[in-house]
């Protein structure tokens, strides 16, 4: 296995957190660069060509959301945000600005690495050929995007156009948290940004058609007050 060495940049002002995140990443053969301030973080992000940025939203020297916008100006690198639990709004802002995922403090090493892997895999999948990605599967569901066919346990499942568009959005961003706003904009169009109850109802239909127990979904997960995430 000659996997190329991946590079991560950690932007976090708390040295102990930096330390264990670094340890966790290094255990999986990442090369890690640390930054204690946003300014320094921006330099690191620009010079190290990272495959992942771990960003603490609560940095003393500036707004993490601005940092994300800056980075998104020139890079598609996955950005994982670390945030305090009580402020869903901050998470939504960060995600809408282009962050890929978030972790709520306090979080464990296992959670962190699971998310990291999911995000890297998506990047990997997206990077491959279209033909191969046109068939996507999770659990007992197979989605053939080229043929526009959805099958569950080899039985075709009938989806309405909106349900299908919604599913495609989830698939193309698998592992990533999609905010309500993002989904509404992509599926319904920009004029429907406020009718989030539509999104919730359609998401519920989708679960009823694709999940074993819609009330305990295994793949289409709810990120309360933030959005949805598809996990494989």
């Amino acid at each position, binding site marked *: 296995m000659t996997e190329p060495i991946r590079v991560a940049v950690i932007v976090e002002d708390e040295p102990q957190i930096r330390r264990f995140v670094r340890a966790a990443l290094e255990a999986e053969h990442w090369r890690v660069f640390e930054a204690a301030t946003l300014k320094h973080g921006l330099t690191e992000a620009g010079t190290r060509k990272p495959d992942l940025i771990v960003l603490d939203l609560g940095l003393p020297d500036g707004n993490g959301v601005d940092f994300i916008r800056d980075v998104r100006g020139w890079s598609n690198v996955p950005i994982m945000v670390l945030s305090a639990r009580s402020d869903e709004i901050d998470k939504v802002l960060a995600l809408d600005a282009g962050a890929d995922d978030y972790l709520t403090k*306090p979080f464990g090493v296992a959670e962190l690495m699971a998310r990291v892997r999911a995000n890297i895999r998506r990047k990997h999948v997206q990077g491959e050929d279209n033909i191969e990605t046109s068939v996507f599967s999770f659990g007992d569901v197979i989605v053939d995007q080229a043929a526009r066919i959805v099958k569950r346990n080899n039985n075709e499942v009938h989806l309405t156009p909106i349900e299908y568009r919604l599913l495609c959005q989830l698939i193309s961003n698998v592992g990533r948290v999609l905010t309500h706003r993002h989904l509404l904009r992509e599926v319904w169009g920009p004029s429907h940004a406020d009718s989030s109850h539509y999104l919730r109802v359609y998401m519920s239909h989708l679960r009823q058609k694709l999940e074993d127990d819609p009330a305990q979904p295994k793949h289409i997960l*709810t990120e309360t007050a933030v959005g949805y995430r598809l996990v494989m």
Partner: protein
Amino acid sequence: MSIRPLSRPDPDQLLAKIIEDADEQDSRVERHGKLRIYFGSSAGVGKTYAMLQAGKRRANDGVNVLIGIVETHGRSETAALVDGLALLPRKKFGHHGKSIDEFDIDAALVAKPDLILVDEFAHTNATGSRHPKRWQDVDELLNAGMDVFTTLNVQHLESLNDVIGGITGIRVNETVPDKIFDAANEVILVDITAEELLARLKAGKVYLPQQAERAAKNFFRKGNLMALREIALRRTADRVEDDVEAYRDKESINQVWKTDAALLACIGTSGSESVVRSAARLAGEFGGRWHAVYVETPALQRLSMTKREQILGALKLAESLGATTAVLSGEVIASVLIDYARQHNFSRIVLGRHAPSSRLSRLFRGRYLHERIAAMRLDIDLIEVSTKQSPSHPPSTDPASPITTSTKRIHWRAYIVTTLACLATTLLATPLVDKLDLANIVMFFLLVVVFVAVKYGRAPAAFAAVFGVLLFDFFFVPPRFSFAVSDVQYLLTFAVMLAVGLITGQLTASLRYQVRVAASRESRARLLYEFSRDLSGALQVEQVVTTTTTLLEPTFRAQIALLLPDKNDRLTASASLPNSVANNATTSASFPQLDMAIAQWSFDKNEIAGYATDTLPSNPFRYIPLKAPMRVRGVLAVRPDNPSLLLMPEQTRQLETYAVLIAIALERIHYVDVAQGALVNIESEKLRNNLLAAMSHDLRTPLTAMIGLAESLSLTNNQNTNTSAEIGHNLAQEARRMATLVENLLDMARIQSGNIRLKREWLPIEEVIGAAIQSVKAAVATRQVKVELAAHLPLIEIDAVLIERVLANLIENAAKFSSPDSMITISAAVKANQFSVAVIDAGTGIAEKMMSTIFDKFSRGENESIIHGVGLGLAICRAIVEAHGGKISAANNMIQGATFTFLLPLGTPPTIDTSHDEI
């Protein structure tokens, strides 16, 4: 054939009708009672009987009927009707050693029946009762939402009192204002013929009070009875006509387009009461508004106090008959009246007729008022009414008031000074008699007359003129020292001197009056200006109180107390004596007569009470509610040293103006306080939120590091000894528990700070349930979780984060108290119009003694030593559910375990339109 104009109702009238109907509907919401009057021509026609019969019928229909007060006068048929109806016990009043039974209004208000029967509507209550008149009691009952049946004889109607008194020779003092009668919802005429009534009288079926028996015998003459019957019938017919008109207005049936039938009654010096009554009657017939005014001229200013009080009494009567009253001041009555009429758009003036006078006196007096008005304005109708005094009017025997004697004393001093001045002039002029012409000496005397007129007014001036003429004649006109006159031309001098003296006196006196009126108006305006200026500068209630007392006490020469409500709308005395903000105790000490109960009544009802009003007039204080645009802000209690001040309409009106100013100032201060309070709240909330955010960050960061480091320890050390991995694992676990604890404490602090701000959204409940189960996966571990959702659950409007927290806490709790292989069930359904979510476990259940306190802070289930946690979880659940307007409860299951249920209001979910999403 002529084309009739389209009959269209007057839009203004229709609008008035709509507003009236709206008012009616409003009052229906408050359940304003209905008044039915059994109306008869005289005693003995059977009103009480009819009323009781109707009451009984209602009672049989299941209505809650109570007899408030009924006089059966020992008549068996009537008494038989009383049986079987609830009877209110009477209240006893001690009065001059005698005990009087009265209607007990308080008991009636407490009993609050649907319908209450109250006999003798015009009855005058014993002194010490709440209201002087029973109809006022009835008014309160109606306001309290009870229907009332009552009885009334025609002679007790205020406007007919005079007429009937004239016919029968008996005047009654117990009267009911016509407006009350006209406002009754139903009037039922109880009518029998005069013959039948007389027959009943003979048979002893009519009750007559013993003392009045002889007078009453006179009363019950056939002629009288027929006249009374006719009046009663006509009065009822008038009412019916009004009803019909009101109906026609409403149904927009074409009616005569009414011009404004307003009346202006001019109250004169004599027979004013008759003018008022006639005007009231006329106004009633024309169906228009009316004003009663009294014009105070310099001449009328000199009237005795008793006369003035009579006039004020007439004004008060007018007010009670529904008039707007005013006291105007001016030189010429006619022009003042015409000005007033023009300002208020009156086309009719009612005047009292003067007794025919001799030609000579006419010459002397000049033209009568009506002639003057007629000469000045041709477009004003004049209505002259008789001013004949009614027979039983007692001549006023009031002793002269102290003010009259004091003015007399002033007069005596004026005459003495005048005499001295005339004598001094004589002394001064005597040495000059040879050097000056007599014509010039006369000038000295004229000067004295002018001086006296300016200083003391008309009468001393006239006296100075006459006395001066005498002195001049005696001392200066040859032959000197005798009244004889040698030259006839001096008679002319005397005449001119006299005339000049009198005219100058007259002119200066009216000038003085004008000056005084202007000065008093100016001072009134200045005071009002100063008062409003001081009040507008006030920033605290105390300042308003001080301003009020210091400015108003000298102005009205009165004791002033400002009574303000506390938080529970109970009045407390806030101020009294100048320079001291007194508390309750000292106020009642310094104002022993101040009655807080009356003040409270006035505050609650927003009506003036106390001295010379309809409510408890025996109290020396007048209580004026401080009515501001938003609500009543308190009560102004006033007790002038001279109580008759409160009888003067303009003084009362001035007081009311001050009351409005005070009310507005108080309201302004109130809203300033509210705004400041809101600002402080915003600031402190900001501070609290910042503090919580900082704390949450500062606590979370080290915990995150701890968990992370401990976990990396357990992950990286797998090739070393197992113990260190285990230690790392345990460390991480403890740190997580601590994190949960911190989370709970912070949440509780946030909730305790009072305002949880809900971010409500409409969503399917299963989404929140799913997220909650996901978040507590670690705690649930091997336990099986089952979700049972009722079919077709509606969306629910909740704060997803908070409700997820409730569910997570409940599931965690369920897991904590149940064995690792048990099942946890979460169910959601709509029950009794509420959204019900339950978490059911098969654990140890809830101990009986914990049931009541389980949702309190820091309370926990049994086995505290085994299971960790501080028991904040359920308290947080309760706070969140209650913030959603819901309820949370816990119960043990039949067999095993416990069920926690929370109910949320359903609301009206938005509709989801899926039609455009066709397949």
